[in-house]
């Protein structure tokens, strides 16, 4: 009886702590959206304004119309999506070879993938910069596509290898017994089962490219070719002190990632932890 009471009290404390922690994590998102919705005059006062009373869409309109916003949004989308598409396709080919086939040098390839995945990419800024300069590729968007492809490829190959390993080969073999060719068995059995893994891997790779800042800042000078992170980091000059516009732009920047996350959240944790370190 007494023990039960103690554990009840503990449970209440736990719940209260959890709510406080939840507020801490949710607050910046709330504050971003709340500021984005607030009229400018309400923002720049010393009044305490935790809850916005009047709501406006004008900050979103301002952000949308700001020079550079739409073009950098488009650039980011184009660069990230093309890099991820390439990394997933080429990574999947490599994953299939490493997971489904036995051949000479296989261990070596797996090691190479592991090492490539651990390489601290930021330390390759200088040689990358010099290389792109020699190729006359500075200030061009395909440069970023190429770099983001290289950044995400080892991760994609490694994670997809884990997902392919998780699909029993017996299923494919059964399909082959039933008259499917090797390709047919792969397309009808393995590929559909691989769907969730492909989605989770793509989302993670997309977020990596979507967030990338150092290379985008270094390789691109032309404002028309900026990506969204670089554009957003220059908001002080772009907006003056227009925090409403900045927060509206940040909200729009967050939305696609948030939607993806909600879709694949569970797979993400497992995919990332599994993909990062294990075979």
């Amino acid at each position: 009886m007494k023990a039960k009471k103690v554990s009840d009290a503990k449970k209440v404390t736990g719940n209260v702590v959890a709510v406080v922690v939840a507020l801490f994590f949710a607050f910046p998102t709330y504050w971003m959206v709340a500021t984005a919705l607030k009229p400018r005059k309400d923002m720049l006062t010393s009044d305490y304004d935790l809850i916005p009373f009047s709501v406006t869409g004008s900050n979103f309109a301002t952000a949308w119309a700001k020079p550079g916003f739409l073009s950098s949004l488009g650039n980011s989308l184009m660069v990230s999506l093309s890099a991820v598409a390439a990394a997933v396709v080429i990574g999947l080919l490599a994953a299939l070879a490493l997971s489904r086939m036995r051949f000479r040098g296989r261990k070596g390839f797996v090691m190479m993938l592991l090492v490539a995945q651990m390489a601290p990419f930021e330390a390759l800024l200088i040689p990358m910069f010099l290389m792109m300069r020699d190729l006359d590729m500075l200030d061009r968007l395909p440069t970023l596509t190429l770099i983001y492809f290289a950044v995400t490829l080892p991760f994609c190959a490694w994670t997809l290898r884990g997902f392919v390993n998780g699909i029993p080969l017996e299923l494919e073999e059964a399909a082959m017994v039933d008259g499917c060719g090797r390709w047919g068995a792969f397309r009808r059995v393995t590929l559909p089962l691989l769907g969730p893994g492909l989605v989770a891997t793509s989302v993670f790779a997309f977020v990596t490219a979507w967030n990338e800042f150092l290379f985008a800042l270094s390789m691109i000078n032309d404002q028309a070719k900026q990506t969204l992170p670089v554009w957003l980091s220059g908001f002080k000059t772009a907006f003056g002190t227009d925090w409403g516009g900045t927060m509206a732009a940040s909200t729009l920047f967050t939305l696609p990632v948030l939607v993806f996350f909600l879709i694949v959240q569970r797979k993400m944790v497992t995919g990332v932890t599994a993909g990062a370190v294990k075979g």
Partner: protein
Amino acid sequence: MTAVHTTDAAVPTNSSSAPRRAAPDGAPRRRGSAFDRALPYLLLAPAVVAILWLIGWPVLSVLVTSFRKLNLRELTRGEVVWTGLDNYTEILGDPDFWAIAARTVVFTGVVVVVSVLAGLLIALLMRQISPVVRIALQVALLLAWAMPLLAATTVYQWIFDQQYGILNKTLVQLGFDSFAGFSWFSTGTSTLGVIGLLIVWQAIPFLAFSLYAGAIGIPKDQYEAAGIDGASAWQTFRAVTWPELRPLLLMVTFLSLLWDFKVFAQVWAMRQGGPDGGSTTLPVYQYLEGISKSHFGVAAAVSVVMVALLALLTAQYLRRLVRSQEGEL
């Protein structure tokens, strides 16, 4: 491989069990044609070419460049000037460099320890709370996790804004009048404090989710046994939770070190390493030397030192990892 068996328990789809590994051996033995034998290499070729060209070559190149004098002058003239260890003696003889390196290591250490500990506590907390609260907490964590780095950085700048930031307004509301117009970015240390808070806030969700996945994989009967033995909460943690979670904890600590050591975006976007270089870390220094000042040779030497430091910080774990992978391939 013990390092991840807790994740395996939580994630059956990713487990790579022994029989499955053995199975593919049957395929090539069906005496394939020349095409069948070449197929794995064909499938691997694009990835291998890309990795050798875009990662392998730059790795070699950064080493080579670090022994060259390569400023804008040499670069435009196409001159190759070897200077031996000059770049290294230059940066290692510069007290500023040591201050920046030490700051980077300390900053990384603090951020990693705080985020891993907090992640662990939140993961354990998630097991103890009612389902509704747990879902609310998980959604909140998800919101933080999903926000792009730069969006999060702008929001933190707005929260910590000197004049209209909600933090100062709140502190004044609570009676701390001296925070009216307080500048959180006036010193390097407090700037790094804000950046550290931002990084911890962004890092915790991943840590909490993965440790939670590990924690729910711990067999229940172990806790029941501990309960029967009359173990206290702390004893149960020491005897059951800690040994089961240790491999996973080591792994996420290693990953955090890897990620937090090379953080650039948040530091640069917040105050460009300022005020007066007070929040400059090694990646920022590398960018300033290499891209802003076009001292490519010196910056390459900084990159090499960065990698060496990172390897030093993670050596123990890397060795274990490579060994465990070798057994598993």
